[in-house]
């Protein structure tokens, strides 16, 4: 139940922040149009090093989740350890939380790295055009 609540809150928060950002971008674009200036390139929110940090933390969480699952199954499948009476449902939820969080961080990091590469390429070509022009 807690995990579902956290998920719903996180989704709602991201929708609100995304809408706010879209509104801000629109206002700024209108202002640049009014000033008859070219709109500058939009910088990715996460810089390159922070994207790598996301990937590293995501990998750590993924590893922890996988270890959690492995540990649970090792105990469950070993008849000698049956007396431990594991709270399987809780452990599965926790492992799922770690794995989902890790995967989400890795995906965000990789996407952000791609955006950074595209931004740097565009920025460099802009600079070359400016130096030629």
């Amino acid at each position, binding site marked *: 139940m807690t995990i579902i609540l956290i998920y719903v809150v996180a989704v709602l928060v991201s929708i609100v*922040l995304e809408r706010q950002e879209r509104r801000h971008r629109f206002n700024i674009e209108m202002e640049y149009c009014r000033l008859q200036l070219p709109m500058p390139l939009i910088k990715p929110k996460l810089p390159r090093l922070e994207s790598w940090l996301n990937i590293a933390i995501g990998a750590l969480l993924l590893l922890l989740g996988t270890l959690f699952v492995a540990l649970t199954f090792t105990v469950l499948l070993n008849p000698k350890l049956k007396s431990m009476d594991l709270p399987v449902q809780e452990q599965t939820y926790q492992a799922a939380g770690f794995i989902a969080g890790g995967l989400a961080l890795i995906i965000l990091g990789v996407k952000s790295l791609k955006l950074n590469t595209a931004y740097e390429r565009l920025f460099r070509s802009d600079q070359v055009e400016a130096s030629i022009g």
Partner: protein
Amino acid sequence: MHYSELIVPAVIIVWAGFEYHRREQDHNERMAFLQRGLMPPDSSLDPPAWRLWTTSAIAFLLFLLIIGMIMLGFKTIAPYGAPFFFIALPFVPIFVVLLLILRRDYQTAKDLSSGNRKTS
């Protein structure tokens, strides 16, 4: 449902409130510059001092954790020492990236204080 289960969602909502307000303030500043026909400064180039301190504190804690695990790995009797190295391993890339971030932020702060600010 126990009230302690609401702590994490409440923290997310409070953080979102602060973040919403901060972004709104940033946007108002940018709009004020643009409405006067001036280019807004690039605020992403200014690392705040608290970020330098928190990054160094986290990097130091990670360093202690990695060194502690390696020491434990060496001190524990042979077959049982290996898991400690295994625990330390995934923290090493995080530590390295934190050091790189720290170096970048320190360089930016130094450039800002000496007055030669980069344009990007």
